[in-house]
Structures are given as C-alpha cells and as structure tokens.
C-alpha cells in the first residue's frame, strides 16, 4: 500500500477506529438513503440495526490481547472499551428493535435511527477515551442526539417539555463538567487521565483547593449523565416524556458510557484522591439510593417509576465505584450487563402493551395481564423479581457482586443501608406483580403484535433466568474486561 502521509500514518491508526468509522459512514449514508424510501418502510431501521451488528463484528475482529492506541493516545481500544462497546451495541440494537412498531407512524423516521446511531457513536468515543478532549467530544455528541430523540414526537407537548428541561439542565451540567475540567487542567496542564493523575498526586498548597473544586464539578457533571442524586431531577420528566423506546435506550446506553468514564477517571485520574472522592461518592450514593427507592413508591406511571428505579440502581452501582477495587469494577460491569437485559425486557413488555391512542403506561394498565397474556405476565414478573434482587435471577447476582465488593472494601454500613433500601424497593417492583396477577382487568387489552419484540421479551427473560442460574461465565467475562485498567 502506498505510504500515505496524513497528519497521522494510515492505516495503522485508523484501523483502530474501524467500528466508529462504520457507524459514522452508515449514519450519514442512511440520512441520504432515507429520502428515497417510502413512508412507513422499515428498511432504514433494519439497515441501522445491521450497522450495530457490523460495528460489533468490526470490534470483535479488532480485539486482541494488547490494547490498541490511536491519535497519539487520544483514543484507546482496550478490553474494557471492547466490553462496554458491546453493551452499547446491544442496548442500541434493542432500542431500535423496540422502536420498529412504536415509531412506525412518525414522520421522517429515518432521522430517528440516524440520531440513535450518532448517539451510539458518541458513546463509543466516550468509552474509548482516556482524556477529557475525546471524552467531552463523545459526551456532547451523545447528549445532543438524545435531546432530539426525547423530543422526537414533536406534536406531543409532554415530550417537548421533557426535552427542553433535559436540554437546559444538560447544558448546565456540561458547564459544570467543563468548569471542573478547567480547574484540573490548570493544576496539571494536561488532558490525559494518567498524566493528570500523576500530577494530582503531587498537588500541594493552593492547588489542593483547586483540585477539590475541579473534582466536585467533574463528579456533578458526570453524575448528571448517570442520574446521581441530586443531579437526577431531569430523569423522571425526561423518561416520562420521551417515546418509550427512547426511554429504554437512554436508561441503559448512556448509563453504561457514563459509568465507564467514571471508572476510568477513578482508576487513572483520582487514585491519589481516593479518600476525598470516596467520601463524596458515599454521600451521593446514600442520597441516590434513598431518593430512587422512596420516590418510586409514590409513582402511578410505570415509566416514572422505572426512572426512579434507575436512580435506585445507579445508587447500587455506585457501591462498586466506592469500593474502587477490581472486584468493584467488575461488579459494575456485571450490574450494567444484567441491568441492560432486565430494562430492555421490561420496556419491551410496556411497548407491546401500548394501545392505539392511549399511552398504556400507567400501573393500573397492568391489572389482570396474567389472564390475557400469561406469557407477558410471566416475563414481566420475572423482570420485576429480578430487579428487586430476588434469588436466583440475574438481578440478585448484580446486587450481590457490588455489595460484596463494597463489604470487602470495608463499607459494611453503607451496604446494610443499601440492603434496607433494596427491601423498600422490592415493594414497588412486587406491586407490579400484584397488579398483573391479582387484580382484575380494567380496560380491554389491545396488544401490538410484533415478532421481533416478542422475541426480545422471550430472549431477555430467558437470559435473566439463565444468568440467575449460571452467573459464573459473566463474572469471568467482566473480570477479563478489566485486565489493564486496574
């Protein structure tokens, strides 16, 4: 091959970005392609799903024992990034599958899938970044796409309100994030996590105050993305207002990307400040767990309830961050993987229940489901039990690994606190089961018939049971993914 002299040598560097390039090119291609397909055609959607698969194949073929680096260290491709990318692909693909029927009557539906692909691209950049420049680039790409996705149903007032709130607060959080990064850059003179971490270890005098300032703003900015309290308040409004497939997508994929960045920062940037960031995170976790689990009890709308449930889960996932150990980090990956499966399954059932004209997302709407559709009822029951952490379903192991890691790291009281609140949380999960199995049908059901979505419900339900019975393989996979990070 000819020796092409770009600013960077080709193709060694760019080959590392093959998955990202596939997604970017396909997204732009689909934008054009969509103009030529008939309204109501699902071709664009299937091509978008195929793109995630292609990205997956590319990622799979690239991965090797050693981490790859591109753009002079601005882009890393290690086993950690690979694992989280796969979670993101799965979340995006499932989000698209859930959209197939739900969004089919929207105008300009091609743009919808393109936005999802760009959001995915942003997240792929995020998880592959080991410096603030790439990270922020990815983060904003993702955030801008998700804002639009929330507001996709333009005629729905609730969606517009939700998107606007989300956008304003998102802008505020981006401001905080950048403000924090500025302080840290000021002290260290670098954007690279590892280099900055090295420098921060030696910060003294006035610099300490600047470091604290930077760290708090950084945690606040990132905490917003993963819905940590008190930066979570956009979550229920946005979840409720967004089209349900978007809710499913945004309750999983950005959380994965956000926690991956959190882990990279904790592992590379902040090891010298372990004591400080731990005390902040403990306080935030205590609040997050309480807010998530308590507020969910008071909800009548299942999407709002699941939004608070997400906040609760985020609180539990933070146990792994607080532990800060390899066990804690692999626990986070385990939790995210299982959380992904449960959440997608739950939303698939909710979407299948959408009736013509009505949203079909109040808790009351589930009354008597078991008599009409025992299969959906069983799946929903499994997901709820799993989310509540009942053994032996996947959700039990998710909690188990992060709690054990926190106990081993010496945070026994925090874990006891979390356990008490997961008992409180069991109430609102099991209440759904009560509606499904013990109440009488109130409004006639009218289901969407969609093979791909029914398959999604089936596969996720089976996976949750399977992971509950044989979790070892997933544990091992998550341990492997962390080689090189901690």
């Amino acid at each position, binding site marked *: 091959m000819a020796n092409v002299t770009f600013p960077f040598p080709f193709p060694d560097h760019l080959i590392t970005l093959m998955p990202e390039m596939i997604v970017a090119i396909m997204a732009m291609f689909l934008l054009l392609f969509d103009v030529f397909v008939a309204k109501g055609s699902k071709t664009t959607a299937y091509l978008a799903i195929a793109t995630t698969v292609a990205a997956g194949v590319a990622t799979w073929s690239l991965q090797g024992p050693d981490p790859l680096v591109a753009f002079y260290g601005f882009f890393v491709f290690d086993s950690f990034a690979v694992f989280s990318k796969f979670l993101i692909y799965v979340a995006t693909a499932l989000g698209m599958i859930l959209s197939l029927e739900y969004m089919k009557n929207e105008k300009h539906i091609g743009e919808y899938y393109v936005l999802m692909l760009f959001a995915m691209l942003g997240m792929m950049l995020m998880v592959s970044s080991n410096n603030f420049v790439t990270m922020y680039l990815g983060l904003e790409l993702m955030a801008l796409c998700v804002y639009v996705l929330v507001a996709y149903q333009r005629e729905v007032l609730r969606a517009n309100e939700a998107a606007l709130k989300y956008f304003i*607060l998102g802008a505020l959080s981006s401001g905080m994030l950048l403000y924090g990064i500025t302080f840290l850059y000021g002290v260290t003179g670098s954007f690279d996590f590892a280099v900055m971490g090295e420098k921060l270890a030696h910060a003294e005098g006035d610099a300490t*105050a600047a470091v*604290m300032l930077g760290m*708090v703003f950084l945690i606040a900015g990132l905490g917003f993305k993963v819905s940590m309290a*008190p*930066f979570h*308040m956009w979550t229920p409004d946005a979840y409720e207002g967004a089209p349900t497939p978007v809710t499913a997508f945004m309750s999983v994929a950005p959380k994965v990307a956000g926690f991956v960045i959190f882990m990279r920062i904790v592992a590379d940037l902040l090891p010298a400040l372990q004591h400080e960031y731990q005390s902040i995170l403990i306080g935030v976790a205590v609040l997050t767990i309480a*807010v998530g689990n308590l507020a969910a009890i008071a909800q009548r709308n299942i999407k709002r309830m699941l939004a608070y449930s997400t906040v609760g889960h985020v609180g539990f996932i933070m146990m792994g961050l607080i532990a800060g150990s390899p066990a804690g980090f692999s626990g986070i990956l385990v939790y995210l993987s299982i959380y992904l499966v449960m959440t997608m399954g739950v939303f698939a059932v909710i979407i299948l229940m959408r009736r013509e004209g009505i949203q079909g997302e109040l808790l009351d709407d589930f009354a008597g489901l078991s008599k009409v559709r025992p299969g959906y009822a069983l799946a929903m029951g499994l997901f709820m039990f799993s989310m509540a952490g009942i053994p032996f379903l996947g959700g039990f192991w998710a909690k188990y690994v992060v709690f054990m890691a926190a106990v081993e790291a010496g945070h026994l009281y925090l874990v006891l606190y979390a356990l008490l609140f997961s008992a409180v949380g069991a109430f609102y999960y099991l209440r759904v089961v009560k509606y499904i199995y013990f109440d009488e049908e109130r409004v006639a059901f009218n289901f969407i018939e969609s093979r791909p979505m029914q398959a999604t419900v089936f596969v996720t339900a089976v996976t949750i049971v399977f992971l509950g019975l044989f979790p070892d393989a997933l544990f091992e996979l998550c341990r492997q993914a962390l080689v090189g990070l901690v």
Partner: protein
Amino acid sequence: MQETALTLSTTELLAIPALPLIGAMIAGLFGWAMKERMAHSITSGFVILSALLSIHVFTQVLAGASFHGNLWTWMIAGDFVVPVGLLIDRLTTIMMVTVTVVSACVHIYTIGYMHGDPGYPRFFAYISAFTFSMLVLVMGNNFFTLFFGWEAVGLFSYLLIGFWFKRESANYAAMKAFIVNRVGDFGFAVGILAIWYYYGSVEYKTVFAMTPDFVAQNVTLGFMGWEVAAITFICLALFVGAMGKSGQVPLHVWLPDSMEGPTPISALIHAATMVTAGVFMVARLSPMFEFSETALVVVTLVGAITAWMCATIGLVQNDIKRVIAYSTCSQLGYMFVGLGVSAYSASIFHLMTHAYFKALLFLAAGSVIHAVMAEQDIRKMGQLRKYMPVTYITMLLAALALAGVPPFAGFFSKDLIIEATMAREFTEYGWVGSFATFAVLTGVFMTAFYTFRMFFLTFHNSDRVDPHAKGHLHESPKVITIPLMILAVGAVGSGIWGVTVLDIANPEVLNGYFGDAIFVMDAHNPLMVMAADGGVHGALGMILHAPFTLPFWLALGGIGLAYFMYFKQTTMPAKIAAASGPIYTFLLNKWYWDELYEKIFIRPARSLGTFLWQRGDLGIIDKGAIHKGIIDNIVAGAARMRAMQTGFVYHYAFAMVSGVFVLLTYLLLKA
C-alpha cells in the same frame, strides 16, 4: 459374601425405582389431559414392570449376586460428601419384591375402587411416586438416600391421607400424620447427624465397618444429665424415627386416623410398606443396634407395649378399617419385639407375610365398604358372605393368616417371633423380656379374637345392612377381586415359601436366608438358642409341632371365643360391655391418647400461636410499632420525595447547584 460370577445390571436396578417415578410424572403432569384408562394403564403398567424386574433381581440375588456401589454424587459441601448409591442384598430384595408386588396389586385394585373419582390421575401419580420413594428408601446404600426416601414416603402418605381434601376430617388426619411424623423424623435426623459427627461418613458399609472399634472406644456423650454411650444415643435417636413412621407408642396416634384416606392407600402405605420402614431400618442397621443392649431393650419394650395396647383397643372398635389399623399397630409391635430380641430375620419375615395378608384384609375391607355404600361400621353389616363370595373367602384366608393359624403365612412368622422372645434373655432388665413374652402371648389371643369378631360381624351374624344400601349389594368387579386373589396366594403361601424356599427359620445357618445382610451377635442370637433347645425344622415340622405350643391354643381360643360371642350368645357382647363399664369405655376411647395430647401439646401450642398472632403479628407488626415506625415513615418519605419533584426546571437546577455547593463546602471544610 462369596465372590460370584453373577452380576446385577445397574440399568435394571435403576429401572426398578425409575419406572414408577416416570409413571408418576406422566400421570401427575399430564393427567389433566388424559382419559382415566390412559392414566391407570401407564402407572400400573410401569409398576407391574417394576415388580417383574424386582422378582428377577430377587432370583439373581438368591443365586448369590449382590451389588454395592455409588452411582453419582448428590452434593458436596467441604468434606461432607453425599453419594447416591445402591446396596442390593438379600434384605433389600425381599423388601423390593414385597413393595412392588403389593403396589402392583393396589394399582390394579385402584382402577376399580377409584373409578369416577375427579382426582383419578392424581391418585395414580401419588401411589406411583410413593412406590418410587419407598424403593429409594430400601435400595439406598447410605443414610441420606434413606432419609430422602423416608421423608418422601411421609410426604406421599400425607398427600394420600388428605386425598379427599374437601373432607375436613381427611385434612385433619393428614396434618396429624405429618406432624406426629415430624416428631419422629426429628429424632431420625438427629441420629443421622450424630452418625455423621462421630463417623464422618454416611455410607452404611463404612459406618458398619467402623462400629466395633467405635464401641470399643467407649465414646459417651452427656444427654439431659445422663452419660449415654454414643452408640446407644444414635440407635435410640434413629429408633424415635422408626416409632413415628411405624406407629409405635406413643407416636402411634396418627396411624388409625390415617384411615381417612382411600382404602387402597391404607393397604399399600399404612399396612404393607411405609409403616414397615422403621422395621426395615432397624434390621438394616442391625450391625449398630447389636452393639447397644440398651437400645435393644427399648425397642423390645416399645414393641411389646404397642403390640399389647393396640390389641386391646382393637377388641372394641366398630369401624372395620380401624380394627385393621389397630391390628397393624399391634403387628408392627410384634415386629419390633422381634428386632429387640435380635430375631431380625423373623421380623423381616413377619413384615413380608404381614404385607400380604394385611394388604389383603384392607383391600377386602375396601371391597366390603364399596358394596355397602361407603359404610364402615361393622355393626351395620352382617351376612355379607351371601353377596360377595370372593371377598368372603379371601378375607377369611387373610384373617386366618393374621390370627396365626397353621399353615397360613402369619403362623410361621409370628411363631418365630414368639419363640425368639421366649428364648432371649436380656442380661440387664430381665423383666422386659418377661413382659414382652406376656405381651406377645396375650396378644395372640386378642388378635385372633378381634380379627374374627370383625369377620363374623361383617359376613355372618344377623343382617343389619341399611335398607338403602341393600339393593346395591353385589360382588365387586374383577379388577378388584383379582388383586384380592393374588394377595390371597401370598397370605396363604408366603409363610411356607419363606420357611422352605428361603430357609428363613433354619437355625443352623446363621440368619438363615439373610446371610451377612443382617448381623447378629452369637450371644444374642435367639435362633441359636432355639437350635440348642432342639429347634423344629421345616414347614411341616413347625405345623406338626404347633399343637404342642401355647400360641396355637391361644389363637384357637380367640377364634373360639369370637365364634361363641358372635354366633351363639349374640347378646353377650353387650352384657360384657355393660359389666366392664369403665374398662370398655377406656378401650373404646383408645386409652385416651388423643385427649392426653390435646391437653398437653395441642392446647398450649394453640394458645402460644394465638398469642404470637394477636400480640406479635397484629399487635406489633401490622398495627403497632413496626407499622408506625417504618411503614408510615417510608410512605411519608415517598410523598415528600414526590413533592420535591415540582416540575419546574429552576427547582431542578437549584437542586444541582446546591448539591455542588454542599459537596464543595464539605470537602473544603474537611481539608
């Protein structure tokens, strides 16, 4: 046992318990979709096949084959390994044949008896699953498979007693059986745990091999202030389990009540198989019981008391099934006396013969009950022989076998136990031996009397059948009478067969047929003592010798008295009842055991339960401190959280900013 070229096929051995299990699963899971014919064909077919395989294995073992080995591992916890394995020897095979043959007869009988019942496939699923459990119990090679089978038969017994779950009395009886058995099973579990604690193994062969050394070490343990030899403790704890399962005083109270279940299960579970599990267990563990004279004395004493007491109760009962049920308790008492005096082989022999004739008695009684429209009171029967000749003849044969009249089956086995009891002398507690001798001898008289009292009142005497049931009187269909005839062959012939073919009673071969499946110390072996006294050889010898022994005349006396009272002087029973007032009432009320338990256990337990429910559950949790303290606060917290979510974006932003502010202040103040 000598090395032998004959080997048993593992597949065949596994098929014996597996077939009933498969049948049970098919009938249990898919019974709702089946016709009656399908459900009973599958289960009965598999059990009959299992019985044929058992007989085949029996003949192979008789020719010298045996099997011992672990097949797979059930669980591992640290160094605690529980294997699943089989021990097939002569003791096992005789049980296997008894269980499967009686079970097969009961399966066939049930086809006729339960016809049209809404729970028809369920019933077959249960009895097949029961057969599986019982086979696991007898075929296992360690204490855990024994325990598994032990609990599983208890479960199916519970389910079958309460089979007609819409009847309150059936539910009550089922619970009673289950709870009383819990007491026994607790002892049993303690025994097994003690074995694990002292021996570090749960396999029979390992434990048996270690026992002589273990006894020689004189290990003792303190138990409620007594210093007890560990071996005695283990044996007694296990025996408590046997008392529960086999209906021995004071845990016998559930067995008569279990008659609430359909009659086929009374025959299968509460006469022929499950209740004999305790007898089998003690015989299987003879290498342990032999080392504890105290345990043997207790076994003898409990057996003797039960044999005698239940016989006295049987004298006055009026429910046809209860008479037979008390007879079962009493006969199990005989078996335990036999075990206690180290005549294990005689006890197992009696177990086998009893299984046939007692199952026959129950099934015949079921046939009678079927004919008289579910009437069970023998005072409302009479003269039935005219209507149901097959039932009449077969029941007569069974009654003769139970009474111990030669040459019927019960004669041989019971006679062996009685002779062994007379021959055995305990070094300490000699009075127990004397009492046991007294109990088994008077028991013979009473057994003969109550059996024929029931028989005469049912089939002879005056016709007292309810006019409404009269038109319905008829002989039962073939599907019911054929099992009766099959079992009648066993009731007549199994005694002679055991003595001649199996050579069970031969004192010159130690343990006779059982070989090393049963261990008896020479000093204890009553058969050896009997041999020294010039024992009697062979079936014919025993029959010819019978007129010179006391039990023979006691049995005839009992039958004669019954004949006299219920044929000749039919006014006499009422006069005797009136004359013996309190004693009669005492016996009629079954020695007041139920009332005693009601006072000392049931009422205190109920009031404790009521207290915990009213004061604890309702008072503290539902309405009291827990509700006010926790639940109300959580609900209030949820409402407050919800109120904070105002929907105004500036509130949200304010929350974020103040969050940052609080965290910063905290960090900077701390630094």
